[in-house]
């Protein structure tokens, strides 16, 4: 029998606000243990939380970017559980009135992953195990998070991977999070079940907690899918439980079963007042949202007539897209800039994080200048390419690197002269060409290009050389 995978995601995304959700401590990653703390975020007796408005704003941004409805009235609740990294023994979160609900993210296969809700909450501290001792670092405690919960709409591991990548891309675009999975600023829990293909009924699900890389998510899901199918095939039952994924052994193991599931005793946090979200505020935030990557990609394809592959590469990171858009201002065809960026500039930004930073030697204005020189026929493509390499190396402008004398190409007479020289000094190539080796003409074109220092129009040179040979 064939089995279908059914999965849903709960993703925690750390918000990039400067200060924590309920106090004015910094949210900066790292730092000496317990130095980014104050009486409020370590929950000293008598302290009270004060909601950071930016957190609400960022969460609304995240909600709007994922097509959610934004609640007019929301509130904070306490989720009670006891763990040493949680200094108040409750996490301030949202239970039945989340800020955002009923959104979706569209996948490339046309399917929509429905977003059930997005709510705001505080992060916990971190336990540090050292030589048999356990220490607590509360620097992360109180860092704002959004939890993005999907419906169980995933039917394949590929869909899950695409979703996580898209979510990451969107959150980065709108500037609410850097979504660095390795630093824990984006963490995923996956709910997985399987069912016979064609069945409508959901199987018993397990939850894999706290995964921090897309590769692990995919591996864990595959492993868990196979494990569940094997269990069912061998007549056993899947037990509802919470699992941990071990990336070394590539297996999942039980953290706790359903019977020891926490009763969080949610209730409204009496220390915080109702969150009123005026519609004007939502509209303001909507107005300020940048064009989202999906829309951008479609526009690049439809309006700029870029191939889809190019559009995808250029829109993956907001900085690259902005760079590209600046570089094409007033140029003839966007494809030229796309080719320069993808073909040449990308060589200097190899890793994904380098691409995201897109910290390169050539400013968008300088690339724009180079393209305009090319568009205006002042330089040829091969000179443009070699100049761009020099620009990447030196950070100089194209106009600083190209001699005045090299601009404006080659006049007709000079080209004729050079072509004649090429034919005269390459008798073997002429012979080969006449013997039917058409490629032999390339050597003569090369001569022209070399001696014109790249200024010659290679195609025109080829025509002229062929003419000279045929007429001789």
């Amino acid at each position, binding site marked *: 029998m064939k089995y279908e995978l059914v999965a849903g995601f709960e993703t925690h995304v750390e918000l990039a606000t400067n200060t924590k959700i309920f106090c004015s401590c910094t949210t900066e990653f790292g730092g000496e243990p317990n130095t980014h703390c104050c009486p409020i975020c370590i929950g*000293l007796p008598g302290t*009270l*939380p004060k909601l950071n408005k930016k957190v609400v704003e960022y969460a609304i941004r995240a909600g709007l970017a994922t097509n959610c409805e934004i609640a007019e009235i929301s509130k904070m609740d306490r989720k009670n559980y006891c763990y040493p990294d949680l200094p108040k023994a409750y996490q301030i979160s949202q239970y039945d009135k989340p800020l955002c609900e009923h959104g979706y993210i569209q996948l490339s296969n046309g399917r929509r992953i429905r977003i059930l809700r997005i709510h705001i909450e505080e992060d916990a501290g971190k336990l540090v195990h050292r030589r048999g001792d356990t220490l*607590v670092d509360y620097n992360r405690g109180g860092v704002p998070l959004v939890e993005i919960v999907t419906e169980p709409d995933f039917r394949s591991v590929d869909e899950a991977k695409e979703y996580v990548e898209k979510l990451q891309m969107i959150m980065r675009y709108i500037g609410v999070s850097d979504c660095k999975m390795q630093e824990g600023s984006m963490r995923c829990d996956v709910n997985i079940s399987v069912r016979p293909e064609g069945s409508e009924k959901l199987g018993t699900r397990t939850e894999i907690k706290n995964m921090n890389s897309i590769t692990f998510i995919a591996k864990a899901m595959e492993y868990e899918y196979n494990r569940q199918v094997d269990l069912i095939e061998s007549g056993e039952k899947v037990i509802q439980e919470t699992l941990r994924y071990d990336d070394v052994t590539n297996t999942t193991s039980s953290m706790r079963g359903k019977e020891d599931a926490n009763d969080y005793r949610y209730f409204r946090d009496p220390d915080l007042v109702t969150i009123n979200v005026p519609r004007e505020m939502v509209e303001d935030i909507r107005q300020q949202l940048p064009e989202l990557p999906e829309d951008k990609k479609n526009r690049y394809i439809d309006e700029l007539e870029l191939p889809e592959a190019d559009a995808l590469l250029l829109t993956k990171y907001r900085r690259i897209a902005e760079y590209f858009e600046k570089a094409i201002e007033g140029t003839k065809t966007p494809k030229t800039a796309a080719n320069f960026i993808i073909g040449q500039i990308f060589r200097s930004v190899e890793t994904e994080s380098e691409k995201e930073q897109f910290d390169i030697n050539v400013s968008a204005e300088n690339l724009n200048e180079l393209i305009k020189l090319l568009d205006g026929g002042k330089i040829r493509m091969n000179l443009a390419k070699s100049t761009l390499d020099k620009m990447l190396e030196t950070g100089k402008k194209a106009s600083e690197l190209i001699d005045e004398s090299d601009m404006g190409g080659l006049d007709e007479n000079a080209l004729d002269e050079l072509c004649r020289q090429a034919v005269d000094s390459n008798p073997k190539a002429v012979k080969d060409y006449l013997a039917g080796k058409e490629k032999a003409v390339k050597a003569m074109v090369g001569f022209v290009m070399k001696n014109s220092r790249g200024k010659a129009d290679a195609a025109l040179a080829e025509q002229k050389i062929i003419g000279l040979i045929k007429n001789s």
Partner: protein
Amino acid sequence: MSESKIAKLHQGLADKEFSCKELTEKYIDAIEKDNEALNAYVTVTPETALVAAEKVDKKIAAGEKIGLLEGIPMTLKDNISTDGIRTTCCSKILEDYTPIYDATVWDILKKQNAVLLGKTNMDEFAMGSSCENSYFGGAKNPHNTGHVAGGSSGGVASAVGGNIAAYGLGSDTGGSIRQPASFCGIVGMKPTYGAVSRYGLIAYASSLDQIGPITTSVEDCAMVFDAIAQYDKMDSTSQGRKGAAACNTLKNDIKGMKIGIAKEYFEGIRDDVRKSVEQAIDVYRSLGAEIVEFDLPSLKYALPVYYIIACAEASSNLGRYDGIRYGYKAENYKDVNDMIKKTRSTGFGAEVKKRILLGTYVLSSGYYDAYYKKAQNLRGKIVQEFRNVFSGCDVVLAPTVPMTAFENGHAVSDPVETYQTDICTVPVNICGLPAVSVPCGFDDKGLPIGMQLIGNSFAEAKILNAAWQYENAANQFRAADFGVKL
């Protein structure tokens, strides 16, 4: 006649009748002499008191004007955080806890050079009506030390009633300011929820807790309230005082003021208490007030609603005492969970554990709807009823407690009856309304009787005005035979 102790001390300081140092030393000596009998203070801070006194004396010597509360020796309930001074909530679990920041109310008063004599006794985490749930033993009633001072702010009431503090700040979650004030024959006010910042008040039940003054006169109460009722950005539920200072209208005529009486408040009230409150009603009639009768049918739900909500919030608020970061930590444990379990089992007293268990129960899945949710719905109903009442009258007059101060040990032996004595005080906490308790007589043993004036939200000025007029016409304050004689 009504007499303000704070005004009198202030005048004495300003006129250089005595220095602030002399005044402070007088109180420190009195604490030394009388605290053993009253057990009002759990921590005495003579050094910090004298440092503040010296500052005030310097100002006076330099000819500077001093504020009303400047240099006045006072005390704080031991659940109000004081930077560098231990704040125990009278619990073993916080016995050695010293805050690293000041509660907003203390920050305000400290800046006005208030002279803090020390921190006063209370029921552990403010849970109780006799102060006997204190880890340090209960505070005694200055009118008869065989009786309790009341609770939970028993220490403040005992100290103020026993004249070993000129005034104090307590906290009131279900009557914890008004009940001990009533038992000790003094004035205590629970302000409107949000009028005074809760920042730094160690929480018992966050939606009910409110800090307020305990004083020997209504005027003192108004002065202290005016000083501490300020908006505080550190407390999201804070709004500060609304309208003019209560002192401005304190002595206004109350002719035509509508005073509401609900029979439900008089059910199960001891006869002598009822009689005293009825005599007070007559005083109001003679002052030209109009007495209006109305019904409060939901009042009977107030007590269960209070205990469900208070315990639910407490169970969450007190989760943080786990021995990891501060406070008491059990010895000899297997692992972290065992450590937390042992710390909480041995660090909390019986009453606190009882309320944590109750609160955890009413919030747990399967019981939430039957208890917590129902209590919240009823809370809304009681709020609505009071709203209607205030459309027909200015203030509501009621007994503060159905009886006078219990004998020592009584509350512990009959906890359910003790819970029931909160019947008159809890409704205003449920509704967030202000109420002031004023002495209105004595029982045949010489123990004080109190009545309370309840106002609409942020109508502190009105209830204090009504209270002052009564006090001025029929003052029932009697100084107890302890402490500083002025």
